[in-house]
């Protein structure tokens, strides 16, 4: 019983980090109405930036946020501005152009293989960072410290993005564009600059997720592939476009992955996750908290 409780707690912690990974995806979807297939690669880029920042300065891993967030924001901003915007301009009348999915898939291939060229397939980790391998003992339970930090960061980041979207002027402009891009344009909101900013925020969120994983996980060029399909599943579970839903969806996946192996072979939990995802797609495509399924 105690092991199940321990697994559940660690599952919730890891699941919150999954939710943080998926956060950028859901924010971008909410406004641009497109699933960014390159999201895992953005996560990978964020992990490399965090890794090198810590490796070269020797500072605490979470101090890397000071560098990672602005770098990733600018990266996302210009990626959308240079690569994805032309598609939107070409297909103005389409609400969710399928071509954008394809272009982001191209971005995914380019980023993953560029990093393979530059960084080689070598696995890198931060072996002597202050968080690695740390555990808290509660009774006979062991709780992972870096995952705890990650989970707290996940909740704080989600809250910060939520606050930004609800309370600031820019946030209102982003939500207006999300609801109706033509009407928002008529109100004087520049649609494409909102897209750039949103993509920047989503990419920065992926960077934050990268910072939280680097203390306990290896960095390598295809690391994004491990997580991106998981991120798709999480955002559909939680509801595409919903910030709280992303965290909750992440926690559900985290619990299944960590408690599941108590009852079956660990590899089967993956099949369970896909099954759950398909059930949600069929029965409730809007997810737990999603906006109305209107497209």
């Amino acid at each position, binding site marked *: 019983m105690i092991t199940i409780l321990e697994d559940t707690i660690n599952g919730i912690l890891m699941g919150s980090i999954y939710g943080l990974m998926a956060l950028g995806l859901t924010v971008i979807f909410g406004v641009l109405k497109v*699933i960014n297939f390159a999201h895992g690669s953005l996560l990978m880029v964020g992990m490399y930036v965090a890794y090198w920042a810590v490796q070269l300065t020797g500072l605490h891993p979470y101090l890397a946020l000071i560098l990672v967030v602005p770098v990733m924001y600018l990266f996302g901003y210009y990626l959308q501005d240079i690569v994805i915007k032309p598609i939107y301009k070409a*297909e103005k009348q389409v609400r969710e152009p399928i*071509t954008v999915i394809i272009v982001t898939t*191209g971005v995914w291939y380019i980023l*993953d293989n560029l990093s*393979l060229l530059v960084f080689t397939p070598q696995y890198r980790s931060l072996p002597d960072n202050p968080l690695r391998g740390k555990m808290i003992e509660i009774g006979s339970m062991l709780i992972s410290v870096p995952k705890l930090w990650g989970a707290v960061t996940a909740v704080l980041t989600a809250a910060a993005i939520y606050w930004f979207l609800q309370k600031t002027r820019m946030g209102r402009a982003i939500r207006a564009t999300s609801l109706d891009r033509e009407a928002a344009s008529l109100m004087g909101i520049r649609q494409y600059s909102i897209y750039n900013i949103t993509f920047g925020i989503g990419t920065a969120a992926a960077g934050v997720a990268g910072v939280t994983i680097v203390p306990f996980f290896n960095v390598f060029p295809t690391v994004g592939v491990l997580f991106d399909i998981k991120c798709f599943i999480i955002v559909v579970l939680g509801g595409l476009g919903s910030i709280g839903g992303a965290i909750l969806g992440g926690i559900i996946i985290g619990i299944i992955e960590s408690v599941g192996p108590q009852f079956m072979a660990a590899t089967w939990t993956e099949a369970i996750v896909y099954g759950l995802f398909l059930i949600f797609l069929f029965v409730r495509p809007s997810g737990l908290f999603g906006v109305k399924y209107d497209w």
Partner: protein
Amino acid sequence: MTRERIQIFFLIAAAGGALGLPLVITSPTYLHILILLFFYAYLTTSWNLVGGFAGVLPLGHSTFVGIGAYTSTILSLQYGISPWIGMIIGGVLAAIAGVVIGMPTFKMRGAYFALATIAFAEGFRVMVENIDYLGPFFLNGPRGLQIPPLNVGLANFMFTGKSPYYYIILVMLAAVLILTYAISRSKLGYQLVAGGEEPEAAAALGINVARAKLIAMAMSSFLTALAGTFYARFTLFIHPKSAMSLDLSFEIAFIALIGGRGSIAGPVLGALLLRPVGDFSRIYFGDKLPGLHLIIFGVVLILVMIYQPRGLQEPLTRAYHRLLDRLSGKIEK
């Protein structure tokens, strides 16, 4: 000479060239590259029935390659049934799987459909990786199945040289191209295109869009599974990470999109242009610059989507028609 005559002439020249190529190209490496090129052209043309004509984006077609490869391999290894019969059985099973997957997913639009096909394919792959014995059938989980190169001969779909495989895949490609041409001119083809572009308008005209898409899906998955058997007999080794990988699904879709989905020539053109780039960059730069061909794929894909959203077949088809005009005009003078 009229345009039709010139076109027939070109067609015969192309067919003759394709038939004669193994006589000229004796290097097994190059023949191997050519076989895989036709293999991908075949897969992409099969994919195009759904991904092109029906206007959706399936990203899980490797499932059907896997079903075809495993069915014929298990039947031939454990029951001694000829792979040719296993090929058909695998195709039928894949068609059933395609309809089962298609029924719920065709109701979804855009990204949801793409994600659902990925989830089906990945879920299926994970299951095969976890199963050693499915009832009486030996799947061998993640380790896959090896095919011993015994009983060489046509009946056993097993040859010592590479050129028989070349001719088999060439015939398969020609057949699927003719079929695609026939479908594109048929009522079903028009229904698919109409349903893909304007589902509401098509439904209002009395077209059963869902039925048309399911028929296309059944045909596409059947044809894709046939290639699975070819793949198994050609490489003599199948495992979930190769025959059912997401990479394979994506590559099929990439080739179609770059070549031009929804057209007959597009998938073949895409394979003709992309496969050699991939193979030669792997041969010459594989050790120093791994993944270079995938970077090229990605860049080409993005450029094509921005500047030629209907694929490279569009400018090339226009050039081809200009050529036809000039040839027919000149000779008539």
